[in-house]
């Protein structure tokens, strides 16, 4: 669904590159979590994928279409939710969704059916014909999500989507992401809320020094018996590679700063140790 090859990006006259040959390939129907420290280049990567930022070299394919060579065709399969919850505040919710649907040439029947479905799910029907400036923070995020999904994008990119959302809104958004992936579409999102990333994603990528240093399956974390938070913090703070961190996590007797290793994982690790000894 999404393929990034050797992506390089440097801002303006800066001597430091933000992205240094980033490679990534996402499968259909998966939810991919994108992690990295502040300033690691997550938003830059996302903006490059969405065609918002130019990049010096490399290639981005969305559903097989080259973003540089066929930008409009590629963007047709894409939707993006920014981290700033920006919307046209002077429009009503309906006008905003209608405008976005117009940009994607969505038929009247499709836009009506999709909008009413999501409006019901997001419980936003009562405010739909009100100007967006009267919406709360969460309502603005919901209307952005409805507008983003109005053209049923094959690739849905979200930058810090849960930022400032109330629990109810966060729950609805997470459900929407899951449902979207279940239909065979791909969801790619960045977040600093590691519990959410762990429960929601199939795979996780960690961005460091302008490249994705590690991509691992969430199942690996579950197998290690630790949590993503423990693993990530150890990885970011220490000099060890992720494989080493995961390895440390799987050794129960080794001195570790991680204190929340579950009994179940300890048992599983003991078993694997015995198996190795045998």
């Amino acid at each position, binding site marked *: 669904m999404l393929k990034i090859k050797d992506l390089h990006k440097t801002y303006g006259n800066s001597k430091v590159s933000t992205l240094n040959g980033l490679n990534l390939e996402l499968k259909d129907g998966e939810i991919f979590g994108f992690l990295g420290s502040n300033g690691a280049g997550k938003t830059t990567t996302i903006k490059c994928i969405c065609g918002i930022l130019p990049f010096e070299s490399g290639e981005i394919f969305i559903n097989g279409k080259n973003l540089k060579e066929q930008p409009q065709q590629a963007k047709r399969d894409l939707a993006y939710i920014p981290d700033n919850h920006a919307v046209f505040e002077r429009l009503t919710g309906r006008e905003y969704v209608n405008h976005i649907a117009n940009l994607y040439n969505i038929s009247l029947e499709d836009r009506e059916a999709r909008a009413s479905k999501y409006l019901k799910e997001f419980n936003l029907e009562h405010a739909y014909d009100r*100007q967006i400036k009267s919406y709360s923070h969460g309502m603005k995020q919901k209307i952005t999500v409805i507008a983003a999904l109005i053209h049923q994008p094959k690739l849905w990119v979200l930058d810090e989507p849960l930022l400032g959302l109330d629990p109810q809104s966060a729950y609805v958004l997470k459900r929407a992401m899951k449902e979207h992936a279940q239909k065979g579409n791909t969801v790619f999102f960045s977040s600093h809320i590691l519990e959410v990333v762990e429960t929601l994603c199939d795979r996780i990528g960690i961005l460091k020094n302008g490249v994705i240093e590690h991509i691992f399956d969430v199942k690996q974390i579950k197998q290690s018996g630790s949590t993503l938070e423990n693993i990530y913090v150890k990885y970011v703070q220490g000099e060890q590679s992720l494989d080493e961190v995961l390895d440390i996590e799987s050794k129960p007797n080794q001195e570790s700063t991680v204190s929340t290793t579950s009994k179940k994982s300890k048992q599983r690790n003991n078993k694997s140790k015995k198996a190795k000894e045998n």
Partner: protein
Amino acid sequence: MSTTWELFRLQMDERIDLFKKTNPKKVILSLLLYVGIIAVATVLLTLVFMRFVTIGLYVDSNLLAVLLLLTQVLSFAIALASIFKTMYSAKDNDFLLSMPCSPNQLFVSKLMVLYAFEVIANTLYTLPIFIMYAILADVSVGFYILIPVFLLVLPLLALVVAALLSVPIMQIVNIIKRSNLASIISILLLVAIFLALYMWFVTSIATNIDFNGQQGTILIRVNDLIANLSTSTWLFKFMADTMLILEGFWWKLLLILVATAVLFVLADICMRRVFFGLSARRSEITTKTKQGTKGYRVLKPFNSILQKEFYTTFRNSGNVFQYFLFTLLMPFIVYTYDRLLLSITVNQTGESMIIASHLLVVCVLAGLSNIVSASAISREGGNFYIMKMSPVSIKTQLRAKIVFNVILTYSALIVTALVTGLATDIGVVHNILCTMAAMILSLGHIIISVLLDLRKPALDWFDESEIEKISKNTKIAMCIGLIMAVLLFAVVFAFAPTRHTIWPWSITLTAVSVFTAVIILYFELRVDKINERMEC
């Protein structure tokens, strides 16, 4: 007191470099620039008035009174605008109140800020007038003693009057603000009243004073006018007399100071009682939100963007004033200009000058009306990502924005042409050709303005009024419009021997058509590249 002073410094630091110890160079430069402007204004004023005096203008207390009146009208307008900006609509009210200070300390610090800026502004235009007057008239020592006193007292008077008036105005604004339509109607009403007064003033000058007559006759009428005005504004006549007549000088001075102090205390009491309540209510009031029940409407992307431009721009009453003031005023200004100034030029330079002058003013106003395009991209703000990632080409999106501006400017130009045709002696052919030239030129100017903004948009703003502060594009677009208008004026003026039509208009229309064609070509060829390179 130290808290109030700190609050005062904090607010001043936000606006000027005067208190910034870290950068003394900036402070010195700012001061030099300020003194330089005063010096230049003094020289220019003295030269202009010297000329008037040699042809018969009286330099007496009446003239000083009228000049004081004019400066104080300006100071009052500045004070009123500052009170709304610094007091009622200040964004830092909440932040400052959260600091360890009492509301009274905050209020006093804000008054100090207002007064400081009023003194700075007032000195800029009042001091050159005092110096000019001292050079041209035989003034006593009292005049020089009173210059610094008046430079400190006059801003206080303007501030006091503005503060007293701001309270009822704010009450009315808070009521009007509840409805967007009421806000727009009020703004238009205010503009209409201002224009009616302006047109009455201009027409009465044009009818009462014969500009084509002898200069001596004109000056006699002007001297009479000054004397009448001075007598009817007794306060300023009293001030002028105090400055010029030594008899009873100290008593008069004391009276002015006591009256100012009493008025200041009165204004302070009135405003202090209502300020926090009014400003808090202002932030609570939200304009009644638009309630639409329309269904969905399938539009082509171009039409949808055009519709969105209209909705997002005109649903904000502030935008009407900020961007479309000159579009709205164009027919009126052109009319008054034609009535007043064309009568002066008729006997001196012939018809060619009249047409060129008319074209100049129409093109300048069209240029000012086009500045909305210089923020076409910036106004997207946080929504700019939609432009970049939607599957609609940047050309289509920008064309919609260009058409939006074209609709507004062309409408204003057509109305202006109709008013000109009905109310002035400019011939039909000249009128049509002038409008055509302005339309073609405007298209080129609009495209340039949009491209300017695409190169460097100001997307990081809190509310739309900040766009112009952050972005220089509007100012650059204004300058370009002005230069283009002056160039056209020069073309028509230079190539038009009196009463010819075909020759000057052929050159003008060819020049504007070539210019706009080149801009369109540049747009078509380069816009994708500019868009690709843009980092946001």
